[in-house]
């Protein structure tokens, strides 16, 4: 087997926190002087000094952070490896090391073939230069030769859909055109390994689709892709394998579907169905509005489990500090893939006409009917909206809850039904006879 193209062994990287600034020269001279006399580094903290003596790597102190610790993995040719994890999990650091932007603290990466990285689209674009000129410049920065770019030029322009503007300086481009052109150049690189970080967060839906399709194509041609994203849908549909990082360590590594759902299920916060703040100063919110209580309540007292057939209430209590404000609460309900199932707002209340609220405590209650959401983990983001248009505060994932599938499907399909919502709709099937004249069918 000689199809392993990336082999990473015990890769670690630590970062120096804090200010690297004033007094660094004297600091460095001090260190050098101490080293000369064989004394411990005076600028290290005491625990680090002890560590130094013990010659162990030990735990990170306040001034240092391990962005990556002992990561080892292998990637085979033609694979698309997804890398997921929360912010600060070390994903970007890993990509930066692989694309040689920074060096690791210890460990080794071995790579077969050329690597091209797309940590950000449009790196090296010069605003004064035209689209045509920038294609050459950007292509060269990404590692293509002039000849290669010439061959690909028409393809790139067609992919980016900027034929008309190719001789216009890119500073006059719309942001969408800019991004499309930048991605087009990168997509037409022909490295054996492509490293991509969150580039799909830009561009319109249609272009995103095109990019995803292109990435799939790239791997079919036998090239390898490393893909970092927060977009779980994209990760799941593109990658065969996924690696989950948390706090610089590799938590899991395996088939995409499994890892993604594990991540969503267990690595995010646990359920959070009732939050109360007694003290206004500590409550989340802004100057104008602070939350007092956010909770999910179930009418059925015997059972505190939410099933697909349990109606429940979302209660939001808040302090309003603005005299005569036109406020309402909006909820965004998300499923575990991060897709917003629907949004709803207290302005839907019958009789609501934007009347102003005086200062004081208010309570908004939303009735969630049964048979609406699909089973699985859901989160609710709460927005406080002023004058029907201005979001004055957004509390992301304020509530997190599970909906249990308890529908009776005896003898039928037991797996989870696909879909964001699972409403019970009215159905009727009737017997219309054994022979239907074709005319009658047409008339209907």
């Amino acid at each position, binding site marked *: 087997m000689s199809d392993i193209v990336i*082999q990473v062994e015990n890769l670690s990287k630590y970062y120096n926190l804090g200010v690297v600034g004033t007094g660094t020269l004297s600091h460095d001279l001090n260190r050098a002087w101490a080293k000369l006399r064989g004394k411990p580094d005076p600028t290290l903290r005491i625990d680090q000094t002890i560590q130094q003596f013990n010659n162990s790597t030990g735990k990170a102190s306040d001034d240092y952070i391990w962005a990556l610790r002992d990561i080892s993995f292998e990637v085979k040719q033609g694979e698309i490896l997804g890398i997921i994890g929360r912010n600060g999990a070390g994903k970007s650091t890993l990509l930066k090391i692989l694309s040689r932007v920074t060096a690791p603290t210890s460990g080794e990466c071995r790579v077969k073939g050329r690597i091209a990285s797309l940590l950000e689209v449009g790196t090296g674009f010069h605003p004064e230069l035209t689209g045509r000129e920038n294609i050459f410049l950007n292509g060269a*920065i990404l590692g293509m030769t002039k000849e290669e770019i010439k061959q690909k030029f028409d393809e790139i322009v067609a992919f980016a859909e900027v034929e008309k503007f190719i001789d216009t300086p890119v500073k006059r481009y719309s942001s969408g055109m800019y991004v499309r052109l930048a991605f087009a150049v990168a997509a037409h690189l022909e490295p054996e390994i492509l490293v991509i970080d969150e580039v799909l967060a830009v561009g319109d839906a249609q272009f995103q689709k095109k990019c995803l399709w292109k990435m799939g194509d790239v791997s079919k041609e036998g090239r390898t892709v490393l893909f970092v994203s927060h977009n779980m849908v994209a990760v799941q549909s593109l990658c065969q394998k996924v690696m989950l990082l948390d706090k610089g360590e590799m938590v899991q590594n395996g088939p995409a579907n499994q890892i993604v759902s594990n991540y969503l299920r267990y690595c995010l916060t646990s359920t959070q169905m009732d939050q109360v703040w007694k003290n206004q100063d500590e409550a989340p919110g802004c100057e104008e509005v602070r939350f007092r209580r956010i909770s999910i309540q179930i009418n059925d007292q015997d059972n505190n489990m939410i099933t697909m057939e349990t109606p429940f209430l979302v209660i939001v209590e808040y302090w309003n500090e603005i005299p005569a404000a036109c406020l309402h609460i909006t909820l965004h309900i998300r499923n575990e893939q991060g897709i917003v199932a629907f949004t709803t707002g207290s302005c839907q209340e019958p009789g609501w006409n934007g009347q102003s609220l005086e200062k004081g405590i208010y309570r908004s209650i939303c009735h969630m009917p049964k048979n609406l959401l699909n089973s699985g983990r859901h989160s609710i983001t709460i927005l406080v909206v002023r004058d029907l248009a201005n979001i004055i505060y957004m509390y992301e994932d304020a509530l997190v809850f599970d909906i249990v599938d308890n529908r009776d499907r005896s003898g039928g399909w037991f797996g989870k039904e696909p879909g964001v919502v699972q409403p019970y709709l009215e159905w009727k099937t009737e017997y219309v006879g054994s022979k239907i004249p074709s005319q009658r069918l047409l008339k209907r």
Partner: protein
Amino acid sequence: MNHNSNTYWDLIIRTKSGWFDLHLSDLWRYRDLTMLFVWRDFVAQYKQTILGPLWYLIQPLFSTIVFTVVFGRVAKIPTDGLPPFLFYMAGVTCWTYFADCLTKTSGTFITNAGLFGKVYFPRLTVPLSIVISNILKFGIQFLFFIGFLAYFMIKGAHIKPNYWIFLMPYLLLLLAGLGLGAGIIISALTTKYRDLQQLVTFGVQLLMYATPIVYPLSVVPEKYKWLALANPMAPIVETFRYAFLGSGSFNGIYLLYSTGTTLILLLFGVILFNRVEKTFMDTV
């Protein structure tokens, strides 16, 4: 499954490589990029300017006029018997090239931090492209100088260009090497000590007065001559003037000394630059 043989892999990324592992072959592979940077600098610099590349001529012309007035007329510093205008212009042309190479390359890491933080390419392509694009500028200014030289010769001034002018490409190489070497050393150090950046513009100005630009080497008292000659720029400028104007001091040993200094500076610079480029993203 024997992947441990290092010949199988094209690239091994690890903490540190040897001091002399300079990846210079990479630099050759990215030669197209270097040339594109040169071209970018040239095109982008004068977009949306009225005078465009004419600025290349205005700069040395005005410096020369000012020097002629201040140092020639007011301070009355001797010019080895040469027309003061040509004397100063020769110095300014050489010095501008060196100073431009030095100041612009010294900002390599700071000005390109955004780009360097996103994508890998041999970082040396940037300072190299600066030196090359400045050759264009130098070329224009040099022709300008030759034009004035011809004018003065026709008017019958006492000027004797000699065969040493064929040393010109070599002098240019030395100027480029010195500027690049010193520039990348400073650029490597500025990633940690920003103070150096302030020092560069100021220091280059001071260094000009330590170099025989506004005065000939011959007026330096014998006692301090060694000090003036310790500056590797001095023999280059003097040789340049000697070759084109036929007056001044020229000494092969001094030029050899400049060559040696340039080589050492360059080697040291490239090594330091390579050290820093690997991790500078963490300190910038």
